[in-house]
C-alpha cells in the first residue's frame, strides 16, 4: 500500500516535472528529428535583443538590460538569467553551434563526379565558418570579455561542455563515423585547436582574418603530424611486440 502510493507520487512528480520543463538538451545527434529548442521564447526574445548591444556594450549585464527593454521587458526581468552575462555568452555559443549545420552545406556524396571532399577538409571549413561567424555578428572585438567569463572557475565546466559539444557537432557534420578510440582523440584535438585559434583571433589585425586562417591551417597540420607520428609509434610498438613474442615462442617459452 505504502509502496504503491509512493510510486504514484513519484510518477505524478516526474510527470509534473516533464510537463513544467521540456527537455532543452539532447545528448545525441538525430538526423530525422529536429532537436528541442534550447531556450524558452521569453529567454530567446531577451537574449537575441541583448546580443545586438554586445558590439557597443560588451558581454555585460548592461547589454542584458538594454536587450530586455528592447524586447518589451523590464530591467528587473534580467533576473531570468541567474548567471548574468555568462548566459548571454552561452546563448551566443549555442545558437552559433546550431546554426552551423545550415550555414555550411557540403555537396551530396552520391552526386559524385566532382572531387570528394575529405573529412579533414570539411572540418577545416566548419571550424573556419564558426570563427567567421564571430566576425560577422560583430562580437569578435568583445570576444576577450567572453573568454574571460568562460574561464571563471565556476563557469569553466559549462564552457568546456559547450566546447566539447561544438567539436562533436563539427565532426558529426563532417560525416565522421569512427567508433573506435579515435572518437575521443579527434574531438579532444579539434577542441584544443579551435580554442587556440579563437584566442589568436581576438588579437588578429589582418584583413579578412587571413592570419587566423593561416594559424588554423598550421595547427591542423600540426595535429595531423602529431597524429601521424603517434600512429607510427603505435604501429612500431605493435610490430616489435608481436615479433618479440614470436621469437620467444620459437625458443619454447609458453606465452
Amino acid at each position, binding site marked *: 500500500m505504502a509502496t504503491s502510493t509512493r510510486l504514484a507520487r513519484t510518477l505524478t*512528480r516526474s510527470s*509534473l*516535472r516533464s510537463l*513544467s520543463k521540456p527537455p532543452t538538451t539532447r545528448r545525441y545527434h538525430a538526423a530525422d528529428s529536429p532537436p528541442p529548442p534550447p531556450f*524558452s*521564447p*521569453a529567454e530567446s*526574445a531577451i537574449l537575441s535583443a541583448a546580443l545586438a548591444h554586445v558590439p557597443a*556594450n560588451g558581454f555585460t*549585464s*548592461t547589454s542584458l*538590460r*538594454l536587450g*530586455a*527593454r528592447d*524586447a*518589451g*521587458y*523590464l*530591467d*528587473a*526581468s*534580467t*533576473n*531570468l*538569467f*541567474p*548567471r548574468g552575462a555568462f548566459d548571454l555568452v552561452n546563448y551566443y555559443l549555442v545558437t552559433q553551434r546550431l546554426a552551423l549545420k545550415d550555414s555550411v552545406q557540403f555537396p551530396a556524396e552520391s552526386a559524385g563526379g566532382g572531387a570528394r571532399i575529405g573529412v579533414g577538409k570539411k572540418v577545416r571549413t566548419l571550424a573556419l565558418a564558426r570563427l567567421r561567424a564571430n566576425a560577422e555578428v560583430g562580437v569578435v572585438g568583445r570576444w576577450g570579455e567572453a573568454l574571460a567569463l568562460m574561464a571563471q572557475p565556476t563557469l569553466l565546466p559549462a564552457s568546456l561542455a559547450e566546447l566539447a559539444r561544438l567539436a562533436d557537432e563539427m565532426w558529426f557534420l563532417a560525416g565522421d563515423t569512427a567508433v573506435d578510440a579515435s572518437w575521443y582523440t579527434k574531438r579532444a584535438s579539434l577542441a584544443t585547436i579551435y580554442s587556440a585559434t579563437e584566442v589568436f583571433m581576438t588579437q588578429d589585425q589582418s584583413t579578412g582574418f587571413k592570419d587566423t586562417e593561416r594559424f588554423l591551417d598550421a595547427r591542423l597540420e600540426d595535429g595531423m603530424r602529431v597524429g601521424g607520428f603517434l600512429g607510427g609509434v603505435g604501429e612500431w610498438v605493435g610490430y616489435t611486440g608481436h615479433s618479440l613474442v614470436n621469437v620467444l615462442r620459437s625458443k619454447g617459452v609458453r606465452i
Partner: protein
Amino acid sequence: MNVSTTKLLGRRQLLLSTRATIRREPYRCFSCSIRHAQQTTPPPGEPGNRTTHFGFETVAEAMKEKKVATVFSSVASSYDTMNDLMSLGIHRLWKDHFVRNLNPGSNPLTSRSPTASGWNILDIAGGTGDIAFRMLDHASTLNHDAHTRVTVADINPDMLAEGRKRALNTPYARTPRLDFVEANAEHLDMIPDASIDLYTVAFGIRNFTDKDAALREAFRVLKPGGVFACLEFSKVNSSLFDAVYKRWSFGAIPLIGQLVAGDRDSYQYLVESIEKFPSQTEFRDMIQRAGFLVPGQGWEDLTGGIAAIHKGVKPVEGKS
C-alpha cells in the same frame, strides 16, 4: 510601598494559578504567545472545517493568521538579536546575497530613456526593513539610482513599528522612497494591478495561510516582466548535514529563544514551520502554477539548502 508590592506579587500568584479563566494585559514573557493563542477564539460564522498547519499543529485556517500575529508581536523587538544567534550571523550573508543578485535600480548613465523613474519594489513581510534598506542602499550606491522606491508591507503592526524606528537611522526616513503599509499578502487591495517591478518576500511566505493565494496576488500586482523573488528556509540536500541542522534547529533554537527573548513557544513554532514548508521543487512548481516563468532550475540553494532563493518572472503577453 512595600505593602503594595507584596499585594501585587500575591495578585500575580493568584493570576498564574487561575490563568485559564482570567484574562490579563498582554505583555512579553515566557510562553506568552501560547496563552494568547489559547484565549483567542475563531471568529463566529466561519466554517471551521478548513484547516492548515501552524508548526506541527493543525488549526482552522481562520486561526492561523491570529496565531502568527501573536508570534511576531512577541518577537518583534528581539528579532535581530535572535536572528543573529540562531543563524550564527549567516542570515545577513543570505540577505546581502539575495539583494545583490536581484541588482535593484537602473543606472541613469546606461538606461537610455530619460523618463526612467527607478524600480517600484514591494517588500512583503518586510516589517523590520531588513531587505528594504539593503535594496535602497544597493540602488543608490551601486546603480546611482535615486528614484527606486520600496513599499514595505507587513501584516503585523508591531513589526512595522520596529521598521519605522529603524528607518530613522537611514537616509530614507521621511522620503518618498520608503513607505510602510499594513497589509495581508493574500489581499493587497491598496496595490493596483501591474504596478510593481520587483516583489520580494524574505522569510515570510512560510507563515502565510494560503500561499497559492499570495502567489496569485503577487502575479496580479507585478508589471509584465516583473520579478517575484522569495528568500525562504528550505530543505537541506545532504543527509549528514541535515542531521546536524535538525539537531541545531530543534535543540538549540527554542532554547536560545527561551533564554534571550524569553519566549520558547514562538521559536518552537519557527522551527516547526520551517520543517513544514514545501521543498525546493514543490515550491518551484507552485510558482509555475501561478503563471510565472522560472529562471534555470528555478531556485538557488544557500548554505547547502538551509535557505533557498526562488524567483519567477511574469511573462509579457504575446511575447512568450
